[in-house]
Every structure is written in C-alpha cells, then in structure tokens.
C-alpha cells in the first residue's frame, strides 16, 4: 500500500479559522483525535554483519549471497498507534488534591481517578518507509503498512518480532475526510516527565500537563491519500491529482507542499 501526502504548517492563531474552513470544505464536523504513538526500532544483534563472504564455494553459494544481502538489508523504525479518549488522561492535580474531598471521609482511593486501562488499549502497527526519491510529481509518496495488533501489552509481541521500544508521544488533532483524502490537522504533545522504566507507560498524566513539542503551538496540516497498489501508475496519478485539487482549493488559506524527504527518513542505522 502506498501513501501520498502533502503538508502545511499552520500557525496557532490560524488554527480556529482553518478548522472552520475545513469543516465547510468537507461538509463535516471535525473528528477530534488523540493518539498514543510508540516508536519501536528494529534491533540487530551485534557482530553478525561481517560474515565471510566468498569463503564458501559450495552449492550454497547463491543462498549464502542471498542471506548476506538480507542480513545487510535495511531496518526501520516503526510506530505503534493507539487511539485515546480524553477521559483516559489523568485528572488535574488541582481537582485531585481537592481538600473537600479529603475532608468528606472518603478513603484516599481515587474512585473517579483516571480510567485508563492499558490492558484494553487497542493498537495498530503503522509502518512508513522513507519517501520515494526523485519522484517528479510534487507530492510525498511512500510505502506504508497498517495492521491491527493485539490489545494491551504490546511490547511482548513487538520484542519477540525483533523490535525494541524507543520512546513515545501523543498526537492531538482533528480529522476531516474529503472523498478519498484524509485531512489531519494535528500537533505533537510530549510527556512532562521522563518514564521510570524503558517501556510504554501504563498510566497517563493529565492532558493539560502535556508539553507542546512546538512551543508556539502551531499545527501541521497533513493531507493524505492511500493507494492499494503503488505500482499502478494510473492510480498514483489520480491520487496526486486529487491532492493537487485540494491544494488549489486551500490555496488562499494554507500552502500545501511536499515534505523534505530526509526529514521523514524512518531507516534505523
């Protein structure tokens, strides 16, 4: 499956207006989205790359070459994405430390505390290759794979499959759908504190404590369209034309453009 994209940067003050414009354009209300995004990196055991090539001249030569090529093949970072709800985040400290609540004789049990259940968190694997180089059309095109994963503790299967957990962040934004195009106006939130252990969090801090990655509060507008068969040039062309159509329609509001290829590099070194 391939994904074609255009991006635009949206300053914070334009956000509200753009939301209205997009709602009018797509004839739908924005769908608010909160996502946990875990970054996993493919790991390789050290010392396996320098095998003695050419030493074996037996029948298995071809096979050896193929295996060697595979051993030195590319490895990637990949994301594991889980949808969240606002109620999944912890409560504000101000309300949690409400003196009245402590006075009223209730135990210290936070009965209305965070309801986030890590065991029931659904996940999806979202793999994105580095964007294709040298495409003449002015869109970012890249190979992608999206697959659902089991609920709950995701690091066990991911570790077994050869991935190690790197870090995580939260994405907040709104989604619009215009025919085949998904428009995602979003920004990245970081966790306020470093995790204690090197694995996905089991509890979430209050949403208001999350720290903006981009301090000015600006948003990214991402318009994407997926194509089942990336080899079908006709379809790829249709898809980019749809994106160009959107770019034209939004011309007076934002400038949608191709992203820098290397900034979307997902290869693991």
């Amino acid at each position, binding site marked *: 499956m391939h994904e074609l994209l255009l991006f635009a940067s949206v300053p914070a003050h334009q956000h509200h207006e753009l939301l209205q414009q997009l709602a009018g354009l797509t004839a739908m209300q924005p769908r608010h989205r909160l996502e946990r995004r875990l970054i996993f990196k*493919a790991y*390789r*055991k050290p*010392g*396996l790359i320098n*095998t*003695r090539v050419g*030493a*074996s001249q037996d029948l*298995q030569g071809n096979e*050896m070459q193929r*295996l060697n*090529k*595979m*051993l*030195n*093949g*590319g*490895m*990637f970072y*990949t994301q594991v994405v889980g949808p969240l709800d606002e109620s999944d985040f912890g409560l504000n400290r101000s309300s949690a430390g409400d003196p009245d609540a402590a006075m009223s004789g209730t135990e210290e049990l936070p009965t209305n505390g965070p309801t986030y*259940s*890590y*065991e*029931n968190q659904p996940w999806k*694997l979202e*793999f994105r*290759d580095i964007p294709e180089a040298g495409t003449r059309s002015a869109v970012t095109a890249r*190979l992608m*794979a*999206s*697959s*659902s*994963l*089991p*609920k*709950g*503790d995701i*690091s*066990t*299967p991911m*570790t*077994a*499959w*050869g991935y*190690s*957990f790197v870090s995580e962040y939260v994405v907040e934004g709104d989604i619009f759908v215009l025919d085949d195009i998904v428009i995602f106006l979003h920004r990245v939130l970081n966790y306020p504190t470093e995790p204690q*252990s*090197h*694995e996905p969090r089991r509890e979430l801090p209050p949403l208001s404590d999350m720290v903006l990655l981009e301090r000015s509060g600006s948003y990214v507008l991402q318009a994407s369209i997926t194509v089942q068969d990336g080899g079908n040039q006709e379809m790829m062309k249709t898809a980019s034309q749809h994106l160009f159509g959107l770019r034209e329609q939004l011309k007076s509001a934002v400038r949608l453009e191709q992203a820098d290829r290397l900034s979307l590099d997902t290869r693991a070194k």
Partner: protein
Amino acid sequence: MSTTGVFFIPSNPNASTALATITERLHTALADNPIPIGRWALEHKLMRDTPSCLPASASQHRPQHPRYLQFLSLSYSPHHGFIYTSQPDATTQTGKANTPTPTPTPHPQPTPQQNPHHHHPADPTKGATLPVMTTLPLPSTSTLFSHFVYACQPFWCHRHTVAVPGGTVYDVGDFRVRIGDVRQTQPTARVRGTVVEIEWRGPSIVSTIVARTSPTASSREGNDAGDGLVTAEDIQDGDVEAEYRACAALIREFWAKLGVEGAREAILVPGVGTEVVGRLQRWRKGLVAVSGVNEEDPDPDAGVDVARQFMEIFRFNR
C-alpha cells in the same frame, strides 16, 4: 475451543501420501461410521531468524537456537489468523521481554503443571521462554507478513509456505477429524505429507469454561442457561491440566485404532491451554464480561490450542 491433537505423516516428494490409507482406515477400523460434513483448508508460513539460516561454518556468531515466526490461517477460524513467535534467547536479550508484567492475558506465563508432561522430541524452544501466541484479524496477519518480508530482512527470513488446500472434515462419534494433504507452495511446489487433526467434542471442562467465558455467550441473555450449575470455584487449574491429559489419551487411543505408522504427534505442546487457564482465572475473579467486545473478532482466543499444535508440526527442519 476444544481439545485437539494433530498428527502428521511425512511423505517423499514423488510418493503418494497417506491420505488414502487414513481415509480407508477411518471407514473400516472404527465402530462409528464417519460422516463427511464439509471441507477445510489452512495456510502456514514459516519465517526463521536470518542469522540462524547461515551454515554453521559461515559465521561464528550463529545462534545456538534458531527462532521462528509462524503465520497460520485456518478456514474454520474465519475471524483471525495466528502468529506464533519464539521469544529471544534470554542471553542476548537485554531483559525487556522478561520483565515480569502484571498483565495475565497475552503474556504466556509458563504453566508449571504442564511443562513436565510433554517430552516432545524436537523442541527447539527448549531453554527459552514460551513462544508468544498472537491472534489478529486475517487481513492484518497478511499485512504483517509482508511487512516482515519487506522491512525486517536482517532478522526474519521466509523459509516456506505450506497449505492444505482442500481437506475433508468427518464426524466420527464424539470426535471430529480433519484430514488433508499438505502441499508446499514456496519456495518450490511439492507434497510434504498428510495432516490429521482429531478434535474431542464430547463433554469437557474446557468447553464449559470456554462457553461460560466467551464474550459472545455473556452478551446473550445472561448466563442462566442449564450449565449454570457449574461455578468457577468448582474447577481448579489442575483440573484443566488433568483434562488435557485425559483428552490427549483419548485422542491417542483413537489414533492408535487407525494404525498408521510413522506419524509425528502434537498434542500437549508447550503453552497449550494457557488461554483456558487464563480465562478460568478471570472467571473466578468475576471478569467474564470482557469490556469492549471487538466487533472484528468476537473471540480472539478461539482456536489457539490447535494453532499451537499445527505450528509445532509445520516447523519443518529448514
């Protein structure tokens, strides 16, 4: 989910398979007449970690135990496919996977009662922790497989794909038997042998537990059906274990009646029954109603035991 056993009779590439013999024995060697009730199919893909595929001479770093990643789809588990992954060796692992996790479900805690009972001849995972069983909707399993083929070449290498394109299902008394020829489709097309799955469909504690804890059942007008006589407290974990052994004996007896030689057996494979015990424990805690029933897959645990057995069988020495 019920108790099953899988037998495999390998054959030479150009010889005929044991399928005809088994079919004939089914009709002659048993008291009950087999009733053909339908067809079945499966597909299995085996991946192995790339370093271990190198010949021993080529690399001094060749790991001692190869690791496997297996994909299985069964026509009678239409909601999901199975993924079975060997855990990394504890020695090379930085300790992430082995951190004890409080979640009981997907992390297969080795059930202590079971390990002593299987003396399987070829257990490549011995010494490591139990493999991870994952079930996913079928489209997702195939997406994942192509993802591994594309993006994980340095550590996963596709070794072969085998399939049972058209098997036959028979009901024989309290047993259901699925037989079919196993054909390898990749890398080269050839016949690998015949596989027989024997399922015990008589009354059992396992089926009771499954029926009482399955999300579909609990959503259906309460649990006040006739089997409300049994409560979770009546069943001990050990009972489940004992039942698996008893059923294994029944299945072996059935197989022996057919009198087919040279078969490999997979019944009490490592990890079998993990989900049933997990369900029993949850049931005892009163957590029957699984929150948020997945509309894609009504029961993600269905068929994991028989999948484990097939995985064990299809881990051909490659």
